[in-house]
């Protein structure tokens, strides 16, 4: 069995930042493995460890910088990684879910996985649509916001829990092949061991350019474009307690007494 895991390197804004044009100035961004994808990787690696002959391959659309993130996946047990990039990507303002899915579907065609795991969303743009768009594009079945997974590869069924709102989970049987979007908390992602980190250095990490995937620059044209980014006007009118920790804590203590939730 082969599991393909989509892995994104996401940007996180520092506490203080400036916006430069249509994005936060890169000096104020930190790049990291997407939180949701970390759980997707762990889920795939656990399936590998529990089964025979399971290969876990990760795929990332991202510039060379993303290789550090990709190696983190390899260090945690991914067997082999694919990075898709091409100068043409740098010129695209916004990769919408459909465009991404088209690129990823070319990789699916090459790899022929039985199961694709993605994160529910990417922590930076929170679009939350790539996984299910991919499923529809490659004609796989799917399940979104999965927080428990029991795979019966023999029967060709994934029994999942989908985490709905308000502490309710939906129990669903999904026919394979399928794309599942993985929710945080489904497992406990491991830390990469020193040995894992060493091994990751020698695991295959292949670059695919558009050509290699049979795609053209025009395939990256997106109907969506970002036209502005700004800090929202603060609607808040919070009273900010100023001073040392002792001073602010004293003010908060008297507030709590005034409101009546603590005695005294």
């Amino acid at each position, binding site marked *: 069995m082969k599991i393909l895991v989509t892995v994104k390197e996401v940007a996180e804004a520092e*506490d203080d930042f400036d916006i430069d044009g249509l994005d936060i100035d890169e000096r104020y961004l930190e790049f990291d493995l997407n939180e949701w994808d970390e759980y997707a990787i762990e889920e795939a690696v656990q399936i590998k460890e529990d089964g025979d002959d399971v290969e876990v391959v990760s795929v990332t659309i991202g510039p060379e910088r993303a290789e550090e993130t990709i190696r983190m996946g390899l260090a945690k047990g991914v067997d082999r990684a694919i990075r898709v990039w091409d100068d043409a990507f740098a010129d695209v303002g916004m990769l919408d879910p459909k465009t991404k899915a088209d690129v990823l579907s070319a990789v699916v065609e090459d790899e022929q996985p039985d199961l694709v795991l993605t994160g529910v969303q990417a922590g930076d743009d929170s679009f*939350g649509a790539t996984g299910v768009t991919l499923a529809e594009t490659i004609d796989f079945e799917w399940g979104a*916001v999965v927080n428990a997974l029991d795979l019966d590869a023999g029967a060709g069924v994934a029994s999942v829990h989908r985490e709905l709102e308000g502490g309710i989970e939906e129990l*669903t049987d999904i026919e394979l092949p399928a794309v599942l979007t993985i929710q*945080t*908390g489904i497992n406990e992602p491991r830390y990469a061991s020193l040995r894992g980190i060493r091994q990751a250095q020698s695991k295959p990490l292949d670059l695919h350019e558009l050509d290699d995937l049979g795609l053209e620059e025009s395939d990256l044209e997106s109907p*969506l474009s970002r036209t502005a980014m700004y800090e*929202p006007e603060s609607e808040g009118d919070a009273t900010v307690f100023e001073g040392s920790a002792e001073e602010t*804590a004293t003010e908060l203590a008297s507030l709590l007494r005034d409101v009546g939730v603590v005695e005294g």
Partner: protein
Amino acid sequence: MSDVLAITEHRQGELRDVSSELVTVGSELAAQQGGELHLGIIGGDVDAFAEELSLEGVETIHTVDHGDEFNHDVYTQATAQLFGDIDPTTLLLPNSVNGLDYAPAVASELDIPLVTDAIAISRDDGLEVTREMYGSKVETTVAVDAEVAAVSVRPAEWEPTEAAGDPAIESFDADIDEDAVKSTVTGFEEVAGGDVDISEANFLISIGRGIEEEDNLPLIEDLVEATDATLSSSRPIVDNGWLPKNRQVGQSGKVVTPDVYLAIGISGAVQHVAGMKGSDTIVAINTDPNAPIMDLADYAIVDDLFDVVPALIEALE
């Protein structure tokens, strides 16, 4: 063709709030487009739901009487067929968990662009959608260069429409291909039960990822004890297994409305805020003055929790 089609949502026999919020955003948008608002109701007690959603601004309600509960394959097919029949300019869907499970599939099948999690939508020259990025720290506008598009709408962002209206109610005979239905909902499970019910508490002290490590939790537990409050948390604390699920506040946890909600080291992500914005008094302790929770807070301390919390325990003694 300048109409809006909005697909409503229900679960276990009840309409979800986002349905009447979709009427609000849908009728505003229909007016801007010079068209009409159509609602789609798929599955469940469609007649009762249609009656409940006979609201101001709705021109026509289309009911698809198929199944009791949400199934993404059925929803995808039915929505695509409704779309084909009504031929709207904009398709509105809820950005709920079930919306995440079918909106992208519908858009992909119809080959129309999708913008998710909208907090504002307008049409002037073209469709323009406002959405957040970077954990709600910034807003962006996204321009859609297409005649027809799908937008998923953030729940609880628009006021629900309450005024009654007089829409036509039409039954739509969707042709569901059962062979293409490859997922089966076998049941529901309630999680987060147990001994404590944080939604009953009048003073919640809620801890987030700012606590960094499980070993630091006793600091907060000391504060909880000193104040006789109830301990709750954001999601990562529960995901890490540091607190049980019944302590989680938010979209997938509990909705709480205490007299005081003290958020310590919590950024205020939208799914967290969904569970606590109805609190009477919100107090935030956070090192980041730009954290979204600050917009919601009535009182705030911009400082390190590892300094403030010990000082607070002392000040209370």
